[in-house]
């Protein structure tokens, strides 16, 4: 790779840079590559053949069938559920985060500092501490074990507010804002006419991180959902994997879920993230913490 990049300017410094980056590619990439190859291999092959032995089409098809025919293709239901939770949760988090981050960044008002501090605290509070109260609360509202309940709870995304706040604190052109204010535009008009058009990158960024969090959400979904028809993919797959004993090696049953099926299920969960990341990368990059350097 380095030779293609800079065939003539290969000095020790450049070499070090590319060597380090290549090392990191191995560190992050090889396990993933292994994971994707492993989806095509049989259990026996996983345990006894060389780590990167390719599988064959037949074992892939067998694995796929084992996984999809389980309980009348229940995985499809879980996937649909995951989509519902993700779409609802991401929309809600955007509706909550973007205006909030803007308000915190663009104006001084009583209680502002408090909201910021609480946001930070919420960002670093362990989920085990709050999950029971959240469960009891939603249960009281009759929302536990419903789509709405999990969507509400996952729409709370303090990290998104933090990102939006940092973004707006630095990228709002002060001059434009001031002149608009002089022209008599009110706060809301300022937000809708000036801030929102500027906010596309941060919307993409918050949407992406919130998608990532909700798509792979296990703990909250596990606590709030007790009906397997409402499970999302991570909870459903974990129930399946743990029930079959494929990983814990107490496989005293005939459920055809073994390690290859677990790997394939893992790929199913990872793949959408991969695709969305590729699609969103342009936005994600341009919007990220561009203003994190504020003092």
């Amino acid at each position, binding site marked *: 790779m380095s030779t293609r990049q800079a065939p003539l300017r290969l000095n020790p410094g450049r070499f070090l840079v590319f060597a380090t980056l290549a090392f990191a590619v191995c560190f992050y990439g090889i396990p993933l590559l292994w994971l994707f190859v492993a989806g095509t291999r049989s259990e026996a092959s996983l345990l006894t053949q060389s*780590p990167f032995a390719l599988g064959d089409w037949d074992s892939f098809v067998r694995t796929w069938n084992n996984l999809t025919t389980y309980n009348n293709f229940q995985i499809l239901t879980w996937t649909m559920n995951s989509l519902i939770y993700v779409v609802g949760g991401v929309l809600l988090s955007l509706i909550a985060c973007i205006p909030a981050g803007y308000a915190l960044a663009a104006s001084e*008002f009583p209680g502002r500092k408090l909201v910021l501090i609480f946001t930070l605290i919420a960002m670093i509070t362990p989920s085990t501490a709050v999950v029971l109260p959240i469960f009891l609360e939603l249960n009281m509202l009759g929302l536990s074990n419903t789509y709405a309940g999990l969507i509400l709870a996952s729409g709370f995304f303090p990290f998104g507010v933090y990102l939006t706040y940092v973004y707006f604190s630095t990228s709002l052109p002060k001059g434009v804002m001031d002149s608009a204010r002089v022209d008599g535009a009110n*706060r809301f008009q300022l937000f809708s006419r000036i801030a929102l058009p500027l906010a596309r990158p941060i919307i993409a960024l918050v949407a992406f991180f919130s998608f990532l969090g909700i798509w792979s959400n296990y703990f909250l979904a596990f606590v709030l959902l007790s009906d397997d028809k409402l499970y999302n993919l991570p909870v459903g797959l974990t129930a399946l994997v743990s029930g079959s004993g494929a990983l814990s090696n107490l496989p005293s049953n005939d459920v055809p879920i073994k390690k290859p099926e677990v*790997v394939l299920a*893992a790929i199913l969960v990872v793949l959408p993230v991969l695709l969305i990341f590729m699609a969103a990368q342009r936005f994600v990059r341009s919007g990220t913490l561009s203003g994190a350097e504020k003092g």
Partner: protein
Amino acid sequence: MSATAMASDMRAVAIDRARKAKQKGRRDTRMSYLLLAPYLLLLLMFGLFPIAYAFGLSFFDTIEMVFWGVTNYQFVFDDFRVPASVVNVLAFVAIWVTLTMIGVAVLSLMLDSINRKTANTLRTIYFLPGAVTSSAIVVLWLFVLDPSVSPFQPVLHTLGWGTRADVIASIGLAGVFAIMAYFSASGGWIVVFGGALASLPTEVMEAARIDGANRFQLATRIKLPMIWRSLVLMGILSFAGGLQLFVEPQLMGLAGPQFAQNDWSLNQMAFQYAFRMGDFGASAALSTLLVGASIIIALVIVFATKFYKID
């Protein structure tokens, strides 16, 4: 118009303007709260209420619902496993925060110095492990850590490790969990810092380049100081997050009882109290202590970085 009249008139104008400004200020405040409303509602429901509820719960016996003071805290402090998990968690945090600070800074700066297209591809690769979660993580690490089937087989064999037990014994559980956490969490930060570095003012870079700074100097003398504050913030957030370590040791249990580390970290103990023993009071007490530590860290962030200041 007399001087006094003029003065009083001016005063009247000034008062009027102040009143208008005040009115506008009030309107602005109202508008700010309107914009904040959806978030505040969620913050209340899923942030503040749960924390307050857990705090209250920590002083109660959750079966009879009677107040019993610090009994729950006493129970936590008397648990023989707590000191060991404090040590475990601190060891993990030390390794993980160091790894994250150095790894993320070095890789981000290096990526910023090469051509954009390659950098984007690499960033994607670095980020992807973050998408691998729950049971997938377990399979992945079960295999990666086992020298006989690991994709890193040659490396592990070179280091003289023949079995998974060798690997774990040599690196230590804290190290293993730190590597696992770094593997999945660092990519996101690298992406975030990629954006931050890309948006640094180009004039400064140009000026430095004209002054003859090479890439290394550009990275260490210009860019690093400019992202330093964010790096520290990341370090502190990682530190706070690390104290809550839960997923990595807990997931190992999915791989069977021989790997179970159910009481390795403090947060796991809080989970065990609540969901194994049904002792939600003791769990709340331990969680409250952890949240307390987090709040102190949050306040440090807030006041050390003047997080709340508007330019």
